[in-house]
């Protein structure tokens, strides 16, 4: 039986295999081509044309001539495994059919190539219109010709020109996104021939960039937060928004605009590459490697798909998992583009200014000038004083008492580094901001109330220093009382020590309007205190906000001196803490610790210097009060105190909690003037220790080891509570009078230098991505990052534009530059077409291609392909000037025609795709808000910088976005300056179809919802603006209601009211006031509609 079958097959094969067309092709066509043909090519295999069939698919060649057993085609149709066997559905091929194929392969698999084979081998998809080279129509002159001739085909024509009022309103909103003023309207109505001049001036206006940047930001899914779960703000993302605005305003050539956004780091445009990382990023990282790989793959996917959609109008993203179903984009192409961007990471980097190389050089020079100044000034660094300096801040609960309820929480100082501002670091003549915040009480006139008391708990003779928050309306006569027995009820022991004008700084200069500044400390004389004495803040005669802040008690070393600042030294630090004193000869030095931050105190090194900076401690004999664990701990030993090595591992720890001492005996008596000690001065990697810090200490010297003289102590240092905030005090309080002028000059020079260095070296950060050399890129089977396949070299799309493939080790930046150049190449058939279509889309509401980010086979066909090519070629011919295209469009009759209804035309072309009229449209959310602010006279035209927030501040780990209900002038800027969170729309404008930046938005929907009505009727913003609008109209038109009403109509509709409207409006305004009318007008269709 078996032999018979074999025999039969052999016989028949000889007969049957001769005719491919008769026997084999029909089999393939019937059983294989449905899945492995032109439409579908599963596993990348096509069996409908000779070229494809022999090339094979994903698993390798399908047919090996002469070897049926090695040919996948034969293996798969005869497989015993049902999952493997082809075709996958229905009955397997009959033995006779498989035998035919076997015989045909074994006989050499002859496949005569027919016309059909040849046709199938050429990629029909490449014939798609958008992949053809640009063709400038030979007879092209202007936009209208193309539009008119298409209209004529349908027996239609352009409408008559729009009237001047309609046109100026249209061109304003269209070009700058704002309404014209009534005066501009009147001027234009008087001379409509000035239209071109109007267009030119609008295109030149800075408002133009603001309006058109918004469109671009939609397309590139720009937002200023991360998205996903945490959705935290990106504080430094805004420079990209400013970059786009500037680029449009300066008419930056579009090809350069492309290059900068992909490789701005190479082109001195750091902010531009925020384009690449403008999308969402998942900040919740986990230990799960699969999740991490997926997160990274999603980031790169966002970059590649946004790049392709934005510049090329292609849905390259479809090829992540498989070859594109419609367009000639292979999965490999997708991964080649991934390789181009694989070195891009989300994050911030410094934003260089235009002349960063010069800056670097200058910095080196400035730093070299700084060093000698520092050396000179070192001689005047404050020496240790043995007297006590006690600072008592208003926030200290132990040493102050609130006698009357305050008005709210302590108020912090205005941010900044200027005199008295929150981060004021101080200088040679001015203390840093020691106040941090102040409390206040609203004092009533003449009511002398005790608000607050400070209790130094120290007896002795002290100079008292006061400070307060300086503000222009604070109390002019706040009184400070010294109460000797600390009991407010007894008054005969009270002395008024000061009457302070809290509208001035301590130096007598006036407070700065709108700035909360720390006054600095003002001396109010020397006073004897008992340990019960307190200072009282009492309201004066004139009332007003009376404030309390830090005050200081300085034990008097010299009664005659008239210091302008108290002597103060910085808090102790775990790093080097220095004590300077007048040089003195000593054989012994003892360092005694009196207070410690925790546990037994630790010192890693104790150094004692002579005036020539020789550390004489190194060779001294050391004795200590005791050592932690009696020296058995290898890290903490007595010998480590003076071994010249820093760090916890080479330190001494006292045996006693909170105290202990170490004594040095020098080899011979030495003249010494400086002690430097530290808890952990180690640098580099590893843990650094700040615990066990000696907070209280004194340094004494002796010549005989018996009688001791103190030379330094912690008593004149700021308390430990200041340690995190104040690390240095640059203020020089020990300058002898005769040196004052010299020191002042030196410090001025130094401050000037330091300022310049700070300005040059502190580069602002921008959320524009980080770049690093990536490893190899693999194609991922089915887009699954856990299934890497072959390595793919960086490159561009193979079938579109010029071929571009780079070596696998191409440097990162070069890849992005190459990709940018490939996109910006004038021969790229898509780039110019896509951008001119976007411009057309925003001018007319619909693009010539209705799908602005899909020019592929599945996208819409252009209504006017020749016009599209005309505009694209104009763009390239005019050095990629976008303003040139804008002007071509704006100057067309098509743009300037009326939007009036024409029933005949409407029947033929209801949505005016052929542009028989200017298509009316609703204003976008931003234009609604901006126009309300313009109309009410409240719009703040400040450009650039960090945006304003429409949401309440919030610091939760998962940021919670709650729409602000109350807006102030800070929010009255144009909406493009809103700091835009991702996927979070504010209650008001979110209802007007603002894209949420979760995904790119090449088109906006324009919906109508009752929530829009509720927002415009009832929101705080609408009510507030209606009020302001009414006030403005009254101010500009006097007391006559009719004139006021006329003004409101002119301001909002750019026209006077009709007599009917006037009557209605008067009635409404008379009954309910002008704001009621203004509220109604903001809700009108005419306001929100553009004709």
């Amino acid at each position, binding site marked *: 039986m078996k032999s018979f079958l074999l025999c039969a097959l052999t016989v028949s094969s000889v007969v049957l295999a001769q005719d491919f067309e008769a026997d084999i092709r029909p089999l393939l066509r019937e059983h294989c081509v449905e899945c492995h043909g032109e439409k579908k090519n599963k596993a990348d295999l096509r069996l409908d044309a000779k070229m494809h069939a022999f090339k094979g698919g994903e698993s390798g060649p399908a047919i090996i001539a002469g070897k049926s057993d090695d040919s996948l085609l034969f293996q798969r149709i005869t497989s015993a495994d049902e999952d493997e066997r082809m075709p996958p559905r229905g009955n397997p091929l009959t033995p006779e059919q498989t035998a035919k194929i076997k015989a045909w392969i074994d006989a050499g698999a002859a496949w005569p190539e027919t016309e059909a084979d040849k046709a199938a081998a050429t990629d029909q998809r490449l014939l798609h219109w958008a992949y053809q080279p640009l063709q400038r129509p030979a007879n092209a002159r202007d936009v209208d010709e193309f539009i008119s001739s298409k209209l004529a085909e349908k027996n239609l024509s352009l409408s008559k020109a729009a009237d001047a009022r309609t046109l100026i309103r249209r061109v304003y909103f269209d070009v700058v996104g704002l309404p014209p003023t009534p005066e501009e309207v009147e001027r234009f109505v008087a001379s409509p021939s000035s239209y071109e001049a109007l267009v030119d001036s609008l295109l030149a206006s800075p408002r133009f960039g603001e309006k058109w940047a918004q469109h671009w930001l939609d397309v590139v899914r720009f937002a200023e937060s991360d998205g996903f779960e945490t959705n935290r703000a990106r504080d430094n993302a805004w420079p990209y928004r400013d970059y786009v605005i500037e680029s449009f305003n300066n008419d930056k050539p579009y090809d350069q605009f492309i290059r900068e956004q992909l490789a701005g780091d190479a082109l001195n445009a750091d902010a531009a590459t925020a384009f690449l990382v403008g999308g969402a990023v998942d900040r919740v990282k986990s230990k799960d490697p699969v999740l991490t790989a997926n997160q990274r793959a999603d980031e790169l996917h966002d970059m590649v798909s946004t790049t392709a959609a934005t510049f090329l109008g292609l849905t390259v993203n*479809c090829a992540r998992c498989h070859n594109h179903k419609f367009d000639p984009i292979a999965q490999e192409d997708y991964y080649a583009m991934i390789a181009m961007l694989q070195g891009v990471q989300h994050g911030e980097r410094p934003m260089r200014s235009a002349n960063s190389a010069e800056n670097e050089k200058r910095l080196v020079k400035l730093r070299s000038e700084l060093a000698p100044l520092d050396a000179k000034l070192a001689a005047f660094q404050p020496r240790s004083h043995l007297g006590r300096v006690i600072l008592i801040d208003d926030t200290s609960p132990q040493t102050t008492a609130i006698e009357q309820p305050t008005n709210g929480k302590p108020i912090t100082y205005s941010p900044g580094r200027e005199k008295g501002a929150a981060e004021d670091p101080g200088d040679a003549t001015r203390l840093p901001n020691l106040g941090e915040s102040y409390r206040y009480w609203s004092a009533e006139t003449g009511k002398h109330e005790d608000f607050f008391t400070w209790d130094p708990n120290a007896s002795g003779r002290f100079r008292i220093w006061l400070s307060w928050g300086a503000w222009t309306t604070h109390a002019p006569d706040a009184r400070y009382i010294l109460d000797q027995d600390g009991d407010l009820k007894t008054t005969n022991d009270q002395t008024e020590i000061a009457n302070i004008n809290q509208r001035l700084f301590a130096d007598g200069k006036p407070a700065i309007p709108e700035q909360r500044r720390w006054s600095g400390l003002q001396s109010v004389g020397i006073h004897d205190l008992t340990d019960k004495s307190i200072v009282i803040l009492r309201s004066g005669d004139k009332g007003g906000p009376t404030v309390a802040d830090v005050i200081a008690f300085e034990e008097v070393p010299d009664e005659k001196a008239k210091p302008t600042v108290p002597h103060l030294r910085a808090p102790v630090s775990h790093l080097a803490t220095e004590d300077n004193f007048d040089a003195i000869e000593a054989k012994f030095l003892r360092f005694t610790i009196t207070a410690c931050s925790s546990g037994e105190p630790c010192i890693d090194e104790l150094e004692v210097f002579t005036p020539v900076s020789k550390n004489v401690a190194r060779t001294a004999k050391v004795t200590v009060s005791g050592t932690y664990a009696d020296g058995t701990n290898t890290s903490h030993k007595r010998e480590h105190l003076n071994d010249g090595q820093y760090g916890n591992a080479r330190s001494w720890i006292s045996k006693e909690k909170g105290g202990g001492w170490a004594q040095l005996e020098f080899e011979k008596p030495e003249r010494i003037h400086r002690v430097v000690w530290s808890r952990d001065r180690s640098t580099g990697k590893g843990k650094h220790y700040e615990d066990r810090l000696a907070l209280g200490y004194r340094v004494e010297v002796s010549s005989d080891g018996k009688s001791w003289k103190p030379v330094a102590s912690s008593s004149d240092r700021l308390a430990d509570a200041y340690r995190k905030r104040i690390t240095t005090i640059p203020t020089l309080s020990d300058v002898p009078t005769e040196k004052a002028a010299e020191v002042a000059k030196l410090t001025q020079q130094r401050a000037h230098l330091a300022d310049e260095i700070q300005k040059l070296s502190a580069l602002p950060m921008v959320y524009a991505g980080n770049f690093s050399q990536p490893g190899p890129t693999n194609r991922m089977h089915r887009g699954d990052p856990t299934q890497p396949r072959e390595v793919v070299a960086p490159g561009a799309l193979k079938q579109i534009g010029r071929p571009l493939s780079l070596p696998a080790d191409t440097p990162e930046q070069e890849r992005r530059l190459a990709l940018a150049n490939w996109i910006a190449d004038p021969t790229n058939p898509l780039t110019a077409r896509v951008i001119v279509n976007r411009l057309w889309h925003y001018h007319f509401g619909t693009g010539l291609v209705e799908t602005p980010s899909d020019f*592929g086979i599945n996208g819409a066909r252009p209504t006017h392909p020749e016009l599209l090519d005309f505009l694209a070629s104009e763009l390239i011919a005019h050095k990629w000037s976008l303003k040139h295209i804008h002007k071509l469009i704006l100057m067309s009759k098509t743009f300037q025609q009326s939007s009036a209804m024409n029933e005949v035309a409407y029947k033929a072309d209801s949505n005016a795709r052929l542009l028989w009229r200017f298509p009316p449209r609703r204003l976008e959310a931003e234009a609604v808000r901006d126009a309300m602010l313009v109309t009410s006279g409240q719009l703040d035209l400040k450009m650039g910088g960090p945006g304003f927030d429409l949401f309440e501040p919030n610091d939760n780990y998962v940021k919670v976005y709650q729409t602000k209900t109350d807006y102030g002038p800070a929010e009255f800027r144009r909406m493009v300056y809103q700091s835009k969170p991702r*996927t979070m729309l504010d209650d008001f404008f979110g209802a007007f179809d603002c894209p*949420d930046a*979760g995904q790119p938005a090449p088109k906006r929907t324009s*919906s109508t*919802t009752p929530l829009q009505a509720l927002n415009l009727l009832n929101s705080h913003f609408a009510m507030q603006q209606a009020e302001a609008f009414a006030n403005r109209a009254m101010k500009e038109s006097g007391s006559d209601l009719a004139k006021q009403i006329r003004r409101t109509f002119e301001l909002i509709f750019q026209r006077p009211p009709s007599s009917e409207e006037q009557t209605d409006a008067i009635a409404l305004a008379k009954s309910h006031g002008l704001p*009621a009318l203004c509220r*109604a007008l903001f809700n009108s*269709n005419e306001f929100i509609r553009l004709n």
Partner: protein
Amino acid sequence: MNHLLNRRHFLNRTVTGLSSIALTSLLKQDNLLANDSPIRPFIDPSRPYAPRPPHFEPKAKQVLMIFCSGAMSHVDTWDYKPELFKRHDTPMPGSGNLITFQGEQGNLIKPIRDFKPRGQSGKMISDLLPNLAEMADDMCFIHSMTAKSNTHGPAENQMGTGYILDGFPSAGAWVTYALGSENQNFPAFVAIPDPRGVPQIGPRHWGSAFLPASFQGTAFNANKPIPNLARPESISDKAERDTRNFLKRLNDRHLEQNPGDSDLAARISSYELAARMQLAAVEINDLSTESPATRALYGTEDTNVNKAGFAKNCILARRLIERGVRFVQLFNGSYAMGEGVGNWDGHKKIHDQYAVHAPILDQPCAALLKDMKARGLLKDTLVVFVTEFGRMPTFQKGANGRDHNPKGFTVWLSGAGVKRAYSHGATDDFGYQAIENVTTIYDLHATMLHLLGLNHERLSFYNNGIERRLTDVHGHVVKDILT
């Protein structure tokens, strides 16, 4: 084929009740286009919430989706695994060096409450949610759910919008885009955030993304009304009437001068809807019309303010469904305020955390189901009870809680079109991985749409180069659970 016949039959029956334009467009698509071509519903701009025909005869007309934020543990609630009791505190076989979201895993740990048979069906459910457990006979469980991500953000995105990425329309937006609403005084889609705050991805659960803004869910709850709903206090009743009359006359004249602009007419009618909404929204939140018995059933007077607040939200949900709102989304749990503080994310101290969350959910939610059943609302309403993923049967190494687990978790459905007292699919012996009838979120969404008479492969919106669907390019209707 069956569907198509049903659908024609259905259309013939109901043709008078439908917008003729919508019908024409639907039939045109049906006749002229291939059967797998996209269906984009026709939206009349003046009536975006007008009811629109489904693709075929639906079993459910409305949806109530209950979402438990933070990932509710299935092994401590619905998915009974006796092996966990037997193997308590022993390593999970085969788990080797398993690394999940927060890191290494400790031993298998038995459920935090005992399980008992419930109802006539004897379904084993834990004591953590005793009131809900009583309703077991009305529930249809899917024990074999899987999610694509094991972090809350993307996973909540997936349950809410079908995609793990940001920027896609929510399920409710898709449904109302397709079907509009039966209630013309209300938005078609309402989201009710938990009294403690919004869920972790916040408004993305009810966003419309690239669909028209009309289909955004409107978020409010018993304590927090619709933003800008109320007329400002400074505007008197008379001033409001006069203003609206003035506005109407102004807009009517403008429309006369701009004839044939349907958007203008739409805006005028949106003001009328807004006025109706102002009344309806106040009425719907007035729970004083509920009987004391009903209020007690839900627990609105409970001393636990979060429970009382959630109970009020549950009543609100029922009232919205009663009034024909198409899609109601009820949230239990809010954003992360620290692990497990505001929601079901029990990593570290699951005993303590679930003891807080369970009572807030249990009585009110059970009452909602019971009440809806008693009022016959389950006949036309599909209830879907979900969470973003499940939790591990093990405790995290060094903690007393369970880590994220997207490989197996439980959701349940109830009401229109789904079997009662039924369980579909299963996880392995420990509740770690779905192994039987593995079900994806795409499948769940496909099934929801199917029950509403919508073909999930055809309901579509063109955006950014692609015909987008709720189910991306995936999803199979889970036929097994349908009646």
